[in-house]
């Protein structure tokens, strides 16, 4: 894999320039996920947590992945970077995770190590536990540089300070020798981001990076990630269950339900014109500032997510869906394209919302 | 108890019931418990354990005596007792007294017995002419005749008596001629009894003190921590031995009381630590705060909100302490500070070691005691593991 020799120049701003020049908005996806199917061997048999997920990720974009807990968003992304426990995880032979022309699922563990942290970085939900408590934050940033660059010790340290400055850590020269427990949650998350970005990855996978943080810190972190994306051209996959985060940070959105993509659309389209009843229900359950919220209760989605051990034959959302018809329970709908151009979205539904024809046909 | 009942219905408990080795362990422990109950109900008494059933050490099914040995058996033991009785003043009464293992004198008149004895003596005299019985196969019929005559001296055993006798020699006898099998089985009761009593007592005491120390804090906490630091600063075995030894002059010296007290005084500490730690954690839980805000008293909160939520830890500790008690009992008894005047695995191991059985290559006594203890302790170890796995997976 490529070694980031240009980092040896040791001046980060220059290197940003270099990367930035290369990343003009391109139409070629940097990551192509095709028919990803990830199963786990459990005591109660094999369970498929991700069932046929396909999407593209373009350079410089932020792709949101939303859904309830257990819908497969984290498994999808850990499959991409292959961080799931080898022993119990089965990737379907037909699945492809194509990064720059290489199928990551076919790489050996040591080839994969050269990708992790180097080409693809990852940020986790719990900044409180994601850092190793017994090493200084400087050590932990430098460790990643040690694996992926040829920098010597003092260069690594300089680079680590630079990274801390980049993630807007106050007083980085001093902070670099502190231990994680000496930092607040927001500061720790900045360190985690600094580790993930220090080798200038093409892709950053952020798994609920703001969930454990205060609301004010949340938006700071989101703005920070957005700014870094602008500077470095890194594509971000942002996993979240918070539609507010999606609205603030994402360009495109994937909605997942029970291991499958149920809707994929540009962020505006998703919020203004949701096609899948599940997306609609999610949006309706969100408080909106304009509405006279005093009298009306927020609608919740009735029922629960089906167990992955006992999935229905038909649409997985059918028994919670208000627009359910007979056909929904009989067979599983495909992910179909609806609309064109900026209006284009994809939904896994026989009777997408706002589709007059489909509704008319059924009634 | 209801807390444990509830606990067993939870999802964590499902994990336990799915664990096949844990179920097997529970079955094994059940068998031991039933055996202990059987012994306690009088199935095997101390007399049974102490009675001498034969001088042959090897188990019944391995017993393959040489003709020389058979001759000796038939012409000494029971025969000499009968002879002595026949010369007594009150022959009938003396005959009633004759007893060797399960055998009594046959219900025959003294005259008939005299005839038999005379016959045996004649046969014995004839056999005595042979220089070495072991290398002369021609004497075998005569030897059989001699043995048949000798057995007529004995009252026939009832099928039950025969069964008991077979059972008692099935694993051989110890150096004093006592049944290894019965002593081993009787020791199950001793082990289970000591295990249950000390584990129950220690868990109850430890949980109570631990919960109180954790919940009330302040001086209560200081006192409890102070007590257990004191107890744990004396080497465990020294404390056990000194405690057990402190009773040697009291009336309780031959009972199990010294053992109970020695174990009880040391075993509660671990449980107390764990429960105190858990209580400190639980105290900060919101439902406890809610209960405090609702105005419940501290005793009510302790009994209703804190202690039930430590039930899983108590169960795990109970199981671990049972193991510790059984293993310590063996060592203490071995050293002579534990069980006295009745069989226990420790005493059996000591006897086997001290009487030269092991050096002589006779492993039946130490082997049986070890095997019984091993299976029980293994079952409890597996159960403790499974309990820990199910209810306290984060435990180190």
């Amino acid at each position, binding site marked *: 894999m490529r070694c980031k020799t240009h980092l040896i120049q040791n001046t980060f701003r220059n290197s940003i320039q270099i990367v930035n020049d290369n990343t003009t908005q391109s139409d070629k996806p940097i990551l192509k996920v095709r028919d990803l199917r990830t199963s786990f061997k459990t005591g109660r048999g094999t369970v498929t947590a991700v069932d046929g997920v396909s999407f593209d990720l373009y350079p410089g974009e932020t792709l949101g992945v939303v859904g309830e807990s257990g819908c497969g968003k984290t498994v999808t992304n850990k499959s991409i*970077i292959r*961080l799931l426990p080898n*022993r119990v995880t089965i990737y379907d032979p037909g699945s492809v995770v194509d990064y720059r022309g290489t199928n990551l699922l076919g790489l050996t563990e*040591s080839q994969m*190590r050269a*990708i*992790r*942290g180097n080409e693809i*970085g990852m940020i*986790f939900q*719990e900044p409180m*536990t*994601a*850092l*190793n*408590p*017994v*090493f200084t934050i400087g050590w*932990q940033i430098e*460790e*990643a540089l040690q*694996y992926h660059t040829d920098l010597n010790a003092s260069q690594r340290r300089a680079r680590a300070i630079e990274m801390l400055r980049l993630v807007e850590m106050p007083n980085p020269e001093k902070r670099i020798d502190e*231990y994680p*427990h000496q930092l607040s949650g927001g500061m720790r998350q900045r360190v985690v981001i600094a*580790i*993930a970005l220090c080798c200038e990855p093409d892709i950053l996978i952020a798994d609920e990076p703001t969930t454990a943080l205060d609301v004010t810190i949340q938006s700071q972190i989101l703005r920070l990630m957005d700014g870094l994306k602008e500077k470095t051209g890194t594509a971000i996959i942002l996993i979240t269950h918070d539609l507010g985060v999606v609205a603030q940070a994402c360009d495109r959105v994937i909605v997942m339900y029970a291991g499958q993509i149920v809707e994929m659309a540009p962020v505006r389209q998703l919020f203004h014109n949701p096609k899948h009843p599940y997306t609609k229900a999610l949006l309706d359950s969100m408080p909106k500032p304009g509405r006279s919220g005093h009298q009306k209760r927020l609608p919740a989605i009735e029922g629960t997510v089906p167990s992955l051990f006992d999935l229905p034959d038909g649409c997985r959302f059918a028994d919670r869906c208000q627009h359910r018809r007979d056909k929904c329970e009989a067979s599983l709908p495909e992910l179909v394209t609806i609309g064109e151009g900026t209006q284009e979205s994809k939904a896994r539904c026989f009777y997408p919302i706002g589709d007059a024809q489909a509704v008319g046909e059924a009634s | 108890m209801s807390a444990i009942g509830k606990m067993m219905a939870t999802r964590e408990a499902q994990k336990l019931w799915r664990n096949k080795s844990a179920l097997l362990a529970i079955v094994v422990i059940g068998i031991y418990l039933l055996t202990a109950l059987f012994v306690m109900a009088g199935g095997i008494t101390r007399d049974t354990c102490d009675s001498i059933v034969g001088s042959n050490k090897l188990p019944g099914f391995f017993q393959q005596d040489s003709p020389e040995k058979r001759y000796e058996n038939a012409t000494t033991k029971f025969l000499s007792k009968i002879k002595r009785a026949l010369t007594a003043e009150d022959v009938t009464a003396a005959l009633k007294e004759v007893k060797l293992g399960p055998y009594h004198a046959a219900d025959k008149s003294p005259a008939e017995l005299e005839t038999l004895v005379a016959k045996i003596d004649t046969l014995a005299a004839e056999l005595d002419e042979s220089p070495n019985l072991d290398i002369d196969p021609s004497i075998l019929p005569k030897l059989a005749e001699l043995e048949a005559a000798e057995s007529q001296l004995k009252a026939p055993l009832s099928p039950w008596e025969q069964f008991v006798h077979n059972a008692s020699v099935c694993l051989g006898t110890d150096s004093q001629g006592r049944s290894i099998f019965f002593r081993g089985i009787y020791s199950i009761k001793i082990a289970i009894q000591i295990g249950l009593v000390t584990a129950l007592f220690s868990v109850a005491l430890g949980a109570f003190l631990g919960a109180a120390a954790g919940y009330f804090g302040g001086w209560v906490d200081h006192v409890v921590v*102070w007590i257990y*630091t*004191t107890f*744990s*600063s*004396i*080497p465990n*075995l*020294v404390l056990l031995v*000194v*405690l057990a*030894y*402190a*009773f040697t*002059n009291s009336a309780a010296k031959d009972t199990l009381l010294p053992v109970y007290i020695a174990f009880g005084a040391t075993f509660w500490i671990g449980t107390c630590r764990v429960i105190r730690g858990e209580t400190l954690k639980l105290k900060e839980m919101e439902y406890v705060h809610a209960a405090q805000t609702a105005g419940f008293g501290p005793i009510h909160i302790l009994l209703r909100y804190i202690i039930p939520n430590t039930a899983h830890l108590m169960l795990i500790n109970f199981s671990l302490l049972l193991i510790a008690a059984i*293993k310590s009992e063996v*060592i203490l008894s071995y*050293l002579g500070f534990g069980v006295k005047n009745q069989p226990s695995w420790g005493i059996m*191991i000591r006897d*086997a*070691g001290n009487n030269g059985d*092991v*050096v002589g290559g006779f492993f039946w006594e*130490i082997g049986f005691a*070890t095997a019984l*203890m*091993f299976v029980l*302790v*293994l079952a409890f*170890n*597996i159960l403790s*593991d499974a309990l820990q796995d199910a209810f306290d997976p*984060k435990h*180190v």
Partner: protein
Amino acid sequence: MWAFVIRKLVYNIPVYLAIIMLLMVLLRQRDPVAGMLGKNATEQDYINKREELGLNVPFFVQYGKLVKSIVTLDFSQKVWNEPGVTVGEKLWTAVPRSLALTVPALAITTVISIFIAMLSAFYRGRWIDRLLVFFAVLGMSVSFLVYIIFGQYFGAYKLQQWVGSPVFSIHGYESGIWNWPFYMLLPVLISVIVAMGYDTRFYRAVMVEETQADYITTARAKGAPQSKVMFVHMLRNAMIPIVTRVMITLPFLVTGSILLEEFFGIPGMGYVLLSAIRNNDFPVVEGFTAVFAGLFILSIIATDILYAIFDPRVRLQ
């Protein structure tokens, strides 16, 4: 740090005083004089003997005397059962013998079981892990006594018969470094085998807990190779419970192993202690417990300090 040490020491003074008192009270449940004098002794003999042993004065005076001798580190009391020997001499000859047995045993056990535990945690859930755990549980279920008896029988007695000359001592002791393997190696090996089951399981649980920690995932996401994850990230964190466990066992090194010393006739601390208890030799039991309890308290304090060294989150307060 010194403030911490001093505060802890002061805090433990009442604990220490209580230990001494508890032990004295327990010991005095028995009357040592009767055993020493035999059946024909007169009332006057008893009184004289009591006076000679210092048992005639009230309990608290005896207690005060003992505390004073401990505070002044004066171990010159006479041993009751061996004329002319002081408690100090008894201790200083016996303790090194025990250490010669227990220190190598602890070191070997700890190193081997950490290694096995890491192996087990690395292959968690696979057959090799299951096998190791199974053997650990199996090993824990056999009585210490049985290990010793069979260890002695096969390791010393039978081996001697097979080889034709003694390989390991069956019973007895001689000091000197060259004599160590002959007298001590077999007891050390038995001790290692006995302790291994417990230690392996404990360390495995520690390692397994660490492998599930989030920082391990972070390290892997950085591209750290498995060896770095195991030996740098995980082991460094696991050091905290490991050090605690080793520290807590340190005071027990001087008690020796009563059973091993009994069986192999090594006149170490366990052996001396047991015979002192049997013979009601109060000064030996008291002097020894005083030393042990002191070491125990010191090791608890040392554990706290080491904790702070290994875990930056811990502050001595």
